């Protein structure tokens, strides 16, 4: 009798395991924490765990190997995505410091970390089963997180997310079943098979798989949940969702298109994805124009931003993946930063998420207004921010790989978005203070988070470190 637990390569999932165990620690420590400091205990333990996981994940970077019989890949590509996910988890976890009911922060932090585990598993997933389980671990946590505050809109967002996301998951696993039927294997690597190019099971299966992916990336017309859920969910959850879901799904998508396609099928197979990405760039930015709520606006903005990232991947060039990663990191920083500022401003009922409550912010909180300006400029893609450089790179990559129309849509979308972002900036720098909202007291953690994000959004423009050796590790 062999002992599978001994032979399994547990070191491959050490970062994931640390994060999962941290969540348990949070739940246990919560019993012993005093009522006042409860949420800081949860956040503190969470951050320590994330830091440890980040360290161990970074150590795996150079060593890429398959673990668990080819089900999970370690190193390189997976590491980069895992670090992005951990970063976003840390940035979102911090924002729980600003949330109202402290008695549930422990549970919410734990679920958030487990969700992050799901995304990290997606980053390394090399078979359909791991993709599915990672996605579900991520999504189930998010359903619960969305509804975890006492607010009508939060519960509504959870219900909408639950129904729509489960439907999309249905498409995804039906697609997986067809892919399994086409190859007889659940390994992604077995999809690289010239014979599959003529298999209808493969084509329709891949199509349904992509429906699930595109839903999670919230591209038009699969985006309808995004604004509602972004607006309704608690702020830390929105921040988490806006980055982690996208990062995990992008990892799966990138691995699929770079390492798991039958030869000569990429162009025909992925065309619908590029089309919806192109539509998203326009529709997402247009959707922002008439918004009054900042979280909702950022939801639409996320729709367009993911469109940009996909434009880099169009053509499946190695450089495109690097640029997409660069933009994803930049996007993580600017989004987390924007949410951190929003968290520092909005009160416990999040009435402060209304754009109107930003009126005259530059007078009341000049630093926060400046940070927000940086993030919005970055989202709009203006120099000297990482968003600007990222867009230039994406443009060059999409044009170089022959998808000029995506580049053109990117430019048009950017032009539209300028107006929407400028509207917010303008409100912040308006001279009349409007009705002075009682801004919440100083929230140090949110400020620190915003400051760090702001520094990175600028610094990344000047030192665009992107891992150069990612592509060989995708496989």
């Amino acid at each position, binding site marked *: 009798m062999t002992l599978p637990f001994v032979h399994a390569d547990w070191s491959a999932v050490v970062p994931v395991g640390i994060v999962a165990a941290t969540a348990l620690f949070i739940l246990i420590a919560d019993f012993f924490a005093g009522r006042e400091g409860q949420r800081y205990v949860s956040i503190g333990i969470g951050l320590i765990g994330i830091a440890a996981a980040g360290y161990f994940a970074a150590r795996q970077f150079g060593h890429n190997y398959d673990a668990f019989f080819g089900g999970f890949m370690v190193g390189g590509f997976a590491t980069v995505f895992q670090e992005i996910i951990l970063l976003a988890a840390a940035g979102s976890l911090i924002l729980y410091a600003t949330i109202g009911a402290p008695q*549930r922060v422990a549970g919410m932090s734990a679920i958030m970390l487990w969700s992050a585990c799901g995304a990290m598993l997606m980053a390394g997933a090399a078979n359909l089963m791991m993709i599915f*389980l990672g996605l579900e671990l991520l999504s189930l*946590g998010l359903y619960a997180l969305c509804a975890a505050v006492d607010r009508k809109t939060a519960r509504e967002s959870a219900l909408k997310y639950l129904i729509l996301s489960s439907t999309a998951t249905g498409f995804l696993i039906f697609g997986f079943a067809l892919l399994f039927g086409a190859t007889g294997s659940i390994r992604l690597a077995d999809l690289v098979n010239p014979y599959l190019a003529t298999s209808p099971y493969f084509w329709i299966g891949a199509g349904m798989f992509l429906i699930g992916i595109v839903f999670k990336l919230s591209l038009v017309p699969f985006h309808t949940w995004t604004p509602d859920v972004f607006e309704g969910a608690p702020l830390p959850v929105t921040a988490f969702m806006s980055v982690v879901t996208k990062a995990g799904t992008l990892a799966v998508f990138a691995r699929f298109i770079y390492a798991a396609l039958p030869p000569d099928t990429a162009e025909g197979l992925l065309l619908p994805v590029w089309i919806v990405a192109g539509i998203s760039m326009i529709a997402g930015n247009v959707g922002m124009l008439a918004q009054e709520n900042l979280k909702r606006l950022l939801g639409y903005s996320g729709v367009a931003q993911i469109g940009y990232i996909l434009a880099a991947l169009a053509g499946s060039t190695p450089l495109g993946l690097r640029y997409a990663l660069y933009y994803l990191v930049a996007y993580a920083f600017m989004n987390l930063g924007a949410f951190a500022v929003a968290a520092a401003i909005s009160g416990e009922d999040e009435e402060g998420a209304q754009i109107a409550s930003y009126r005259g912010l530059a007078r009341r909180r000049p630093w926060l207004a400046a940070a927000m300006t940086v993030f919005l400029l970055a989202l709009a893609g203006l120099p000297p921010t990482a968003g600007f450089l990222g867009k230039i790179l994406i443009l060059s990559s999409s044009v170089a790989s022959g998808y000029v129309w995506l580049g053109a849509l990117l430019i048009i979308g950017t032009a539209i978005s300028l107006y929407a972002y400028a509207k917010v900036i303008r409100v912040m720098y308006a001279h009349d203070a409007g009705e002075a909202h009682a801004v919440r007291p100083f929230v140090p953690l949110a400020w620190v988070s915003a400051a760090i994000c702001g520094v990175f959004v600028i610094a990344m423009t000047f030192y665009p470190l992107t891992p150069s050796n990612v592509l060989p590790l995708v496989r």
Partner: protein
Amino acid sequence: MIEFWILAVILVASAVWTIAASKPVYSVVALLLNFAALAVLYVTLSAEFLAVIQIIVYSGAILVLFVFVIALLSSGVAPFAMGPNRLPKIWLPGGVVVLVSLGFLVYAASQAVPASVRPPNGPVGAANVFGSVSDFGAALFTVQLLPFEVTALILMVAVIGVITLGGEAMRDAAPRGHERKVERAMREAILREGTD
């Protein structure tokens, strides 16, 4: 062969009934029928273990959960009286759209050359044990160990998630004035039941 067609008819009919039933509790019954038929179909496909799981987990656990929630939500009225289950106008265009796409899918499937499903190239388990508990368990604890462990996490999330949701959220879940609405509905229901 004949069992496939019988089961297929049952499956489709019960599925249609599930989505067309006038009360949610009937939908549950239809779904139960569907799951049972599926379990039988699994046996014919030599997946005995999954047939058992289908009955135990799906019919025994999940559907009971549904019934419980229906009872919970309609408490204050007669248990299981929730409904009527409104069917909005959208069903016609929605149905047409979906059926068209279904047509395409079936068309594409029928285009499949029979050779697309090749004889197996080396099964994991030996053919005579295929689908058995031992075959299943061996794979689950070796090749698919990581997915199995992840499932534990998923269940953990479900447990903690429900606790987190239920802890405080239930407190003010029902909006004010709701009781009166429920009461009125209850009276109407009793009246109607009485006249029937």
